[in-house]
């Protein structure tokens, strides 16, 4: 089997999630990596992808049409390459989720989303019902289209490989869509999905200012990323890309500290694979305590500043 992996990159660097996806893909077959993008950044990303241990070949598709990864342009590129591959594998990121199903539909393949493990040549496990059940599924399609949950696989070594880079011919612009803008939230903090420690706040944090005053100093002290529940995001305490959960980001840090979060199943779906979970909540019956390793029943407005001070 030969597998085509879609590389996620930014400013010429390969994102960590791709390293996990390469590990998953290598369990299926020989890995070729596709870098789609534009100009210098794409070439740099291709060089970086060529150094990932386990990558046997890199395909570089460089074209203005791929600069923003518009699925209307990128999916036809991939579909065009799939004659030579048995499987297409992307990360289950907003980008991978956007592109992979378009590829699957064109190949007349039923995609397997968000895999947690590779059980056999065509057999995989994946979460359903917000992770309340794990399904083992076997594909009967001629080719595989898969997205990978990054937290479920170790990262491949970023250095050590020396794959050849080949140019892939570009398919150009479909003319169906155009990129208008990206409002990125700026943060100097560790990336939420790859941080070792995450401090998350919920509805109890009252407003944006309070969230910042209570959660940020603790996160700073711990060198942690900041996360949030949907209730906190909806109430405008913090922007959407901090949401952890079924429909937000999936995290599995060494330590997850949930502050003023009740523990709805949709939130747990995004963090229950964390190694150690700490919960601070004033309601001793809050469901979060059923999965927390260490629970503190307390008013967060007293406990969190005290904790920040004492660490």
């Amino acid at each position: 089997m030969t597998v085509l992996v879609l590389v996620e990159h930014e400013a010429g660097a390969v994102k960590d999630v791709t390293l996990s996806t390469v590990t998953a893909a290598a369990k299926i077959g020989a890995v070729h990596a596709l870098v789609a993008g534009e100009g210098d950044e794409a070439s740099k990303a291709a060089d970086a992808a060529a150094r990932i241990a386990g990558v046997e070949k890199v395909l570089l598709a460089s074209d203005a049409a791929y600069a923003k990864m518009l699925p209307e342009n990128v999916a036809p590129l991939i579909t065009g390459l799939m004659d030579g591959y048995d499987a297409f594998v992307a990360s289950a990121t907003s980008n991978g989720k956007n592109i992979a199903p378009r590829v699957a539909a064109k190949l007349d393949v039923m995609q397997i989303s968000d895999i947690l493990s590779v059980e056999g040549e065509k057999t995989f496990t994946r979460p359903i019902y917000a992770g309340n059940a794990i399904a083992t599924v076997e594909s009967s399609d001629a080719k595989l289209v898969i997205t990978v949950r990054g937290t479920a696989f170790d990262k491949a070594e970023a250095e050590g490989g020396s794959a050849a880079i080949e140019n892939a011919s570009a398919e150009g612009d479909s003319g169906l869509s155009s990129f208008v803008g990206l409002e990125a939230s700026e943060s100097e903090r560790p990336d939420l999905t790859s941080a070792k420690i995450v401090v998350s706040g919920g509805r109890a944090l009252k407003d944006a200012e309070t969230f910042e005053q209570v959660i940020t100093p603790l996160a700073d002290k711990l060198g942690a990323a900041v996360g949030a529940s949907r209730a906190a995001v909806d109430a405008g305490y913090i922007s959407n890309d901090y949401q952890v959960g079924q429909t937000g980001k999936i995290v599995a840090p060494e330590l997850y500290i949930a502050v003023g979060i009740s523990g709805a199943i949709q939130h747990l779906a995004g963090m229950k694979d964390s190694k150690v979970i700490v919960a601070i909540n004033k309601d001793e019956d809050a469901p979060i305590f059923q999965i927390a390793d260490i629970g503190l029943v307390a008013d967060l407005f007293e406990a969190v500043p005290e904790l920040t001070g004492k660490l």
Partner: protein
Amino acid sequence: MKILVPVKRVIDYNVKPRVKPDGSGVDIANVKMSMNPFDEIAVEEAVRLKEAGKADEVIAVSIGAPKSKDVLRTALAMGADRAILIQTEAEVEPLAVAKILKAVAAEENPQLIILGKQAIDDDSNQTGQMLAALIDRPQGTFASKVEIDGDHVTVTREVDDGLETVKLALPAIVTADLRLNEPRYASLPNIMKAKKKPMDEKTPEDYGVDITARLKTLKVAEPPVRQAGEKVGSVDELVAKLKALGVNA
């Protein structure tokens, strides 16, 4: 302009799903079922576009068991004009759903199709994108804002690094994320009125779509259970525990 809104009947989001003891699936007998929460948001958006004079007809469509009529009635009570039930007892995978929706779209010619971004039972997050590919149209997935102007729709998307805005040529596909809007509750008079709105009944065969499953579910299991740990009595104890774990700041 017509808007098509596919809605799925799923286990209510407040219910904790239970895996069947024989590992064959999740038990949905005698469990509360509702419209997929993202699809409610999709219906709401379509109805608002109609109320704003941007659309003149909203059609809700569901593929599933006869009971899916309930969620179609909900969509009608929220303000959809008519409904289509494509009835089957089989579990229909996103690829087959997309193929059926392609056939419905060919009959109805909607300018906009708004789906939910994911069904909370299979958590696939595929159908909208697959449909867009099958009909060779652009997609605005995970939408938190939708603005129609002339022959384009501008969609703001919730992506991993923030909010991305794209401009799509109509007809287009949009998939709704949580913050697109807050769906209304259907009022009692509107629920009564919905009973008189038209509901067509079809089958996948009517559209010539083969719904044979491509994925075989070998097993459904409970995820590893996480045991509750211990409660500490004070911040000092918490600090001690964290230090014991090697957390030092």
